[in-house]
């Protein structure tokens, strides 16, 4: 399905808009999940089952007084949350949510994703530094160290997929997984999946790897000095990361929008219907990961910093390397044999 420029624009707006919505409700979702796990009720006052809670929160944050520390570096202090949000958002541009429904497909899509993720760290780092507070600074340093460390393992995990797919285009990665669930990358690359998944926690600053903002040690970490709307932006960026990470996981390992055996039972169906089903499928899979993220957050305790680094460098990185080597070796043998 080819979309014209106008269609493209509409699609872009649609995708980012719904992403916005999803992020807002991810917060609500998180609170609900947390409540369930702790045997509470969770937000249920605003709207039906508290469904309007996110909007209330946003409204509240917008109305709060904006405080900027006097010693802060103003410009960067202002820019930092923006960088965070934007970097989180533009990753999504590469992700196809249904066949043909994507903002862009470039032949180095995977690299693009890696690049954007790696730049994402600037938001956090600069926020911490510009606040000119030691808690913030420590938080941002932890963030930069942690992100650089886990990016490597993440990249290595992706290399496995690229090797299998023989392409860096995200669309072709999804295509190559077909509608057969047994050909999805989670089956082909279980170790890679594990690594990527764990690294996602670190990249998204989620528990058990939320050291950059660990309340008990650093008050609020890099966003200690932020308030009002800017704080909301960080908050927003964090949940965007969550959604984006889940989407990427879905795309790379869970066949993306692919509906199991759709070629069998959906053969010849209306393509708009198929697209709709695919979008639903994608959202479903994504929500699964979102739920997993939350589950983990409310279950596991926080890592110690040195354990975090050890895990990254001593286990994930070698594991990733082994994964790449095994995958490449397997491909070589497969090539020669068949």
């Amino acid at each position: 399905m080819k979309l014209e420029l106008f269609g493209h624009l509409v699609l872009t707006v649609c995708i980012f808009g719904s992403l916005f919505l999803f992020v807002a409700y991810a917060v609500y979702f998180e609170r609900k999940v947390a409540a369930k796990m702790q045997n509470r009720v969770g937000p249920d006052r605003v709207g039906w089952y508290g469904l309007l809670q996110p909007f209330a929160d946003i409204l509240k944050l917008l109305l709060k007084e904006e405080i900027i520390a006097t010693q802060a570096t103003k410009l960067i202090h202002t820019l930092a949350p923006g960088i965070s949000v934007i970097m989180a958002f533009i990753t999504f541009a590469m992700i196809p949510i249904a066949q043909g429904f994507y903002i862009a497909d470039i032949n180095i899509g995977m690299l693009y994703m890696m690049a954007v993720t790696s730049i994402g760290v600037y938001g956090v780092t600069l926020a911490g530094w510009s606040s000119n507070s030691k808690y913030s600074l420590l938080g941002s340093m932890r963030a930069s160290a942690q992100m650089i460390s886990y990016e490597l393992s993440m990249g290595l995990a992706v290399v496995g997929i690229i090797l299998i797919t023989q392409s860096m285009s995200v669309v072709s990665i999804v295509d190559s997984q077909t509608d057969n669930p047994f050909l999805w990358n989670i089956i082909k690359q279980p170790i890679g999946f594990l690594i990527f998944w764990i690294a996602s926690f670190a990249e998204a600053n989620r528990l058990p790897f939320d050291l950059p903002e660990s309340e008990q040690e650093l008050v609020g970490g890099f966003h200690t000095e932020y308030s009002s709307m800017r704080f909301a932006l960080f908050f927003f960026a964090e949940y965007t990361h969550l959604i984006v990470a889940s989407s990427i996981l879905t795309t790379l390992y869970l066949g993306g929008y692919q509906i199991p055996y759709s070629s069998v039972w959906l053969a010849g169906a209306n393509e708009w219907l198929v697209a709709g089903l695919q979008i639903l499928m994608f959202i479903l899979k994504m929500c699964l990961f979102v739920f997993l993220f939350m589950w983990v957050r409310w279950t596991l305790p926080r890592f110690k910093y040195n354990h975090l680094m050890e895990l990254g460098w001593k286990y994930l990185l070698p594991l990733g390397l082994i994964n790449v080597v095994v995958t490449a070796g397997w491909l070589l043998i497969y090539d020669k044999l068949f």
Partner: protein
Amino acid sequence: MIVDILFYITALVAIISGLLVITGKSPVTSALSLVLNFFCIAFIYLMLEAQFLAIIQVIVYAGAIMVLFLFVIMLLNLQDDMTLFERFDLKKGFAVLLTGLFLLEIAYIFSLDSVSVAPKGVTGASFPELGTVESIGKYLFSDFVYPFEMISVVLLSAVVGAVVIAKKKVD
């Protein structure tokens, strides 16, 4: 046309950010300007159809190297430096003069012969798909496999060296 304008704007931004790097008061300003500069360069790479390099530029320079710089600047909590024109003394004037001379000499060779009319190299075959991942990958693992593999020695020794030097405890 649009490309031309885009190019000149990018070039301008690159120059301005470059100037900021060397005049910025705080190391962080310099670092951020440098990141901006790298983005500009990456953009020019894209214009030159070197997509792979453009993205690598972002990943390696902006995503890794500069983050490391920032990390160290924060770790050491470096104080503000003097800017170029604050306390502008003879030494700095001399430095500007010398750099100007250097640039002048490069400009002089431009006046001698233009780059784009520089004679074609021996391997002048037309090759439109130059900057793609595929072609880079192909050459990297055929003609350039030896330097490519040997680059790993540089990285390895850098890792060892950095660890040895920056390690705090002696055991």
